[in-house]
Structures are given as C-alpha cells and as structure tokens.
C-alpha cells in the first residue's frame, strides 16, 4: 500500500507542476492578443482566462485527456505488467516537466503538447514494444499538428478579408461595423456552441442529438444577435454622425467619376453639344473645389477607425473568452492525462484501461492548477507579451482569436492534443496574408518546425531515461 501512495504522490506533484507551467506560460500566448490590442485590461484578461480556462478544462477537457491517458499507448498491452505502465506514465510526465524546464532556460520554442505526446510515445514504443502504441492514433495526432495551424490560418484569412470588404473598405466604416457586428457575434456563438455541443458533453453526462444542438445554438446566437443590436444602437451614434461630414470623400469620388465620363464623352466626339459638356465639366470642377475647401484637417488615424476598433474590442472580449475556453479544454490534458492513467491503473489494476472516462474531479483539479499558474506567474507573462504586440488591433485580434478558438475547439472535441500556440500563430499569419499586419516575422515558422522535429525525439529519449531510473528505484515492488 505504501508504494501506491508514494507513486500517487509523485504523479500528483509532477502533474500539478505541469499544470502550473501551462498556466504560467502557455495561457499568455492565447490571451496576449487581447491585452495587446487593449480590448481587455490585464486584470480583466486574467479574470476571464481564470474562469474560462477552468470551465474549458472541466467541461471539455476529458476528450483529449483520454487520448493521452489511453489513446496513444494502449494500457491493455501491459497485461500483468501494470507497474511498468504506471512507472512509464510517471516518467513521461517527469520527462516533459524536465524538458520544458530545459527549453525555457534556453528559450527554445517548444510546445507542452508536443513534449508530452513525444514522452508517452517514447516510453510506449521502447518499453511497451512497438505494438503497444496505437499508430493510427499517433498518425492522426501528427496530422492534426500540421492541419490545425493551417486551418486557423485559412479561417482567419477569410474572416479578415470579409471584415476588410465590409468594414475597412466601406466609405462609412462605423455604420458598416454597427451593421455587421451582430452577425459576427451570432456567428461566433453559433460556431462555439455547435462545436461544443455536437455529440453531447460526456463530462456532464449530457447527450444531445444534432438537432437539439443546432436548435439550442441558434437560439443562443439569435439572443446574442439582438443583444448586440440593442447594445450598439445607442452609444455609437456620434460615430455615425461623423461619416456625414466625411461624406465629402464619397462625394468627391462621385464627382470625379462624373467628370471623367463627361471627358470621355467629349473625347469620343460630342460635336453638337461640345460647349454644353465643357460648361458641365467646369461646373463639376467648381463644385469639387468647393467641397475640397470645406474639408477639415483630419487627425492621424481618423476617428471613424478608432470607433470601429472600439466596437471590435467588444467582439474581441467574446473571442478572448472562446480562446481561453478552447485552450483550457485542450491543454489541461497535457498534465492530467498521465495522472489519470496512473490513478486509474492503481485503483483498478485489473480492468486495464477499460474505465477510460476521466474522473471529473481530476479535470476540476486540472483547471485549478492552470488558474494557480496564471495567478502566480502567468499574468506577468501576459503583460510582457501584451506590451510587445500593440500592432494587433481589435479588428485583427478578433479575426485571429476566433479562427484559433474554432480550430482548437474542433481538435478538443475530436480528442486531438494540439499546440494551441501554433494555432494562434497560424491565425495571426492568416490575418497577415490578408495584408492586415505591417510586418510578421517569418522566422517563427522555422521555430514551429523545430518544435515538431526537436521536441519529439528529445522528450521521448528523456522519458525512456527517466523510466529506467524509476524502474531501478521502484521496479522490484509490485502494486496493490
């Protein structure tokens, strides 16, 4: 019995350390965009992150946790060797924690997700044998690492192109924003709730048919739509008034077009009406001149776009919530997965992974661990990152966050452990490809690639080494 307690203690401590690490470092990459664009103050960002990371982990964290717990390495292959499996999972967790510590020290751009998957894979294939690993599961995880950032990028690109066409290129950007913002909100809510509710939510033992999910989601989206309409109806009136005086731009454009057409008419040959056409052109020119002199000097970035950004800042609060929720639902598994595997194996050594549902209290604990990491250290990382990415304004930030949140949520739903940071990076690059950001450092692509090829073997080898060390310590004992 004593050995059980020691192992449980070790795995819990290692798990809590990993959770703290995720809260301290990873959350910042997801929330920094909102702080950078000043859609959220640091305090509000931390509060939102704390609540929604917890909820995400608690409600939707189970799927990915199961994958790490029993998807990559099949526990039933360890029939009669439960101690090996338990030690292996513990060493995977310890190796990841160790590797992250080293990587942080050298500032290597690694991902927690890649580290834990690599560690579990390494121990499973070397100690358990090649057949202990479910290679089709590993294949789909590897595929999702490539697909998820690309997918986020594509969504962000399309969404930002839409915002460009509808708002930024509009001649009255404020009223266009007021017009499309409710649709945006409804779209976000619809996407989030459909991806959340499809196939039901296992943790809350909620099974929903697709029809019910669609119905509930569209009801929520409709409520959001009208709430946004009512909310935006009043406070931005002054903003709408601006475009009346700014109409001059549009008027001037129209007049210059008219002048051009008349000039063309003259060129083709306006013989009998030439003098009339000339008079008209002169007339138009004097109107244009009069309009031009009426034009006031504008400030650096005109007020209209400032108001547009203000409205998008509200939308970005919603998208920030989605990102925090999605992040919690995916990354909690990195720490909780191995813990769940060990606890499950120690408690029911006979069933070998058949009771694969993750205990709900463990997910709650996972959420709590992330929140603690966030509260003790993570807020500072969010602050530094936020200060450095001021060029990401709410229009851009909203598109990037929504795209990232969507692809992370889909991955969480499918039980695929992906790197949330890489999804956010993919989304930001998508906005950049739509010419939304003035300068993006493409060297980070090399970093991402490095993270794939470097982390996997390193954490795998570390896990194997840690396993042999633990085996030397505890290998002679048996469980139960």
């Amino acid at each position, binding site marked *: 019995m004593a050995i059980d307690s020691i192992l449980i203690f070790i795995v819990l401590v290692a798990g809590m350390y990993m959770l703290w690490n995720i809260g301290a470092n990873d959350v910042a990459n997801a929330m920094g965009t909102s702080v950078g664009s000043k859609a959220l103050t640091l305090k509000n960002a931390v509060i939102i992150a704390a609540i929604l990371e917890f909820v995400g982990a608690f409600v939707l964290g189970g799927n990915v946790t199961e994958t790490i717990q029993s998807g990559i390495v099949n526990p039933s292959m360890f029939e009669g060797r439960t101690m090996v499996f338990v030690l292996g999972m513990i060493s995977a967790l310890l190796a990841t924690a160790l590797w992250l510590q080293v990587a942080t020290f050298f500032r290597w*751009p*690694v991902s927690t997700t890649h580290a834990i998957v690599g560690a579990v894979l390494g121990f499973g294939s070397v100690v358990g044998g090649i057949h202990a690993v479910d290679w089709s599961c590993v294949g789909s995880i590897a595929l999702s690492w490539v697909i998820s950032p690309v997918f986020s990028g594509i969504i962000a690109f399309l969404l930002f192109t839409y915002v460009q066409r509808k708002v930024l290129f509009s*001649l009255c*950007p404020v009223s266009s924003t007021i017009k499309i913002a409710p649709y945006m909100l409804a779209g976000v809510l619809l996407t989030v709730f459909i991806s959340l509710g499809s196939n039901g939510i296992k943790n809350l033992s909620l099974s929903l048919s697709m029809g019910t999910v669609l119905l509930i989601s569209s009801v929520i989206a409709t409520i959001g739509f009208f709430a946004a309409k009512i909310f935006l109806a009043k406070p931005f009136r002054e903003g709408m008034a601006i475009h009346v005086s700014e109409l001059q731009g549009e008027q001037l454009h129209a007049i210059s077009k008219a002048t051009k057409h008349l000039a063309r008419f003259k060129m083709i040959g306006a013989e009998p009406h030439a003098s009339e056409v000339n008079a008209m052109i002169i007339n138009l020119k004097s109107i244009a001149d009069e309009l031009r002199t009426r034009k006031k000097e504008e400030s650096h970035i*005109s007020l209209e*776009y400032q108001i547009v950004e203000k409205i998008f800042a509200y939308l970005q609060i919603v998208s920030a919530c989605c990102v925090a929720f999605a992040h919690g639902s995916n990354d909690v598994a990195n720490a909780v997965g191995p813990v769940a595997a060990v606890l499950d194996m120690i408690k029911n050594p006979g069933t070998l992974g058949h009771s694969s549902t993750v205990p709900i209290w463990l997910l709650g604990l996972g959420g709590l661990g992330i929140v603690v990491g966030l509260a003790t250290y993570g807020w500072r990382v969010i602050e530094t990152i936020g200060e450095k990415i001021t060029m990401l304004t709410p229009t851009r930030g909203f598109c990037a966050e929504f795209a990232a949140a969507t692809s992370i949520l889909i991955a969480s739903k499918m039980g695929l452990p992906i790197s949330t940071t890489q999804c956010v*990076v993919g989304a930001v690059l998508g906005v*950049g490809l739509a010419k939304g950001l003035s*300068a993006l450092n*493409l060297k980070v692509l090399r970093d991402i690639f490095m993270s794939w090829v470097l982390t996997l073997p390193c954490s795998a080898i570390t896990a194997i080494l840690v396993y042999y060390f633990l085996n030397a310590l505890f290998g002679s004992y048996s469980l139960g």
Partner: protein
Amino acid sequence: MFNFAKLFGKGPFSGLQAHMHKVEGCIAKLQEIFDLFFEGKHEEIEAKALALSDEEHEADIIKNEIRNNLSKSYFLSVDRSQLLDIIHLQDSIADQAEDVAQFLVMRRLKAPATLEKLLRDSVNKNIDAFWDVVKIINKLDALEEASFGGVEAEKVRTLTSQIAFKEHEADVIKGAFLKELFNIADDLSTAEFYLWNYHIEHINKISHLSEKLAMRIDTLVAIKS
C-alpha cells in the same frame, strides 16, 4: 516556451515617416533660401545651403537604415520593392532640393522683373505640391489601419489628383518662364542663360517627383473599395 511576441516585427511606415520628416526639413530650408534669394541677401544663402546639405545627409542615413532593416524574413503588408521605391522617391526630393540650393549659390544672379515673378510662382507651386504629398505620407499608418482601402484611400486619391494638377500648373509656369527666358536671351551672358535654365528645370522636378511619389502610394490603394 514559444515566445509569441517574436512573431510581430516593427512596421516600415514609421521609418518612412521619419525619413520624410528630414525631407520636409530640406524643403523648408529651400523655401527660406528662395526668400533670401528674392530679397537679394546672397551672402546668407550659402550657410543655409550648407545646412540643407547636412539635412539631406541625415535623410540619407535614415534611408540606408530602413533599407538595411528591411529583412527578408519579414512578411510585410506592402510589397518590399514598392517600399524601396517610395523611400527612393522621398530621398530624391531631398536630393533635388540640395541640387537647386547648390546651383543657386554659384553666381549672384538678379532676375529681370518678368522672370522673377514666374520664378516665384514656380517655386511656390512646386513646394505646394510637395506639402500635399507630405500629407499622404503622414496618412500611411491610417491607411494601413484601413487595410489600404475605404475612406482613407479616398482621401489619398483626392490628394493625388490635387498634386497631379499642381504638377501640371507648375509645368505651365515653367513653359511661360522658358518662353520669357528665350525672349530676353540676347541680353544675358551664356552663364546666366545656362543657370536660369538649370534653375527652372530643377525646381520643376520637385513637383514632378512629388507627383510620382503620390502615384506610388496611390497604387497601394488601387482598386480597393
């Protein structure tokens, strides 16, 4: 850990604007030089012309900094070659101002009354066109915020057509000046004739370059909205 902030580089526009600020200094000095020229205070011109050269050199330094920092690993919202074109045009305006100032101190010319009025007009028109293109450059960050379309683009378009018109007016003035110059050519020495000709040609290039610069920015906003 992956440092997310590394993804974002500094945009090139603040550099362009800093460079343009130096060019503005050159043109402001050129204006002062012409004021002195028309007042006949030739002895003060020389010092001003040297100050202008200094400012032009400072602009050059900024230009080279921008060029060197335009690293290939950055993905920019504006095409790299277009950016280089823009900075090149900005810089050539400063060069032009320097050329004009340098030749103005070559010989203490006194313009005949008929020429002087046209020369004044030409200087004013050209410098006017330049200040319009300054407005466009100062709009670059607003333009980027608007993704190079919409109302901001419309403003740029209006300014561009305004500059194009001023360039045309400047050309007309230059034509009148040349006509007058050839009228009185027999009364001038060869050196004087050459210098007047040189002055008008080179002053006129300021509006020409300003128009070109405006057109470059205009191509950034083309067919959006």
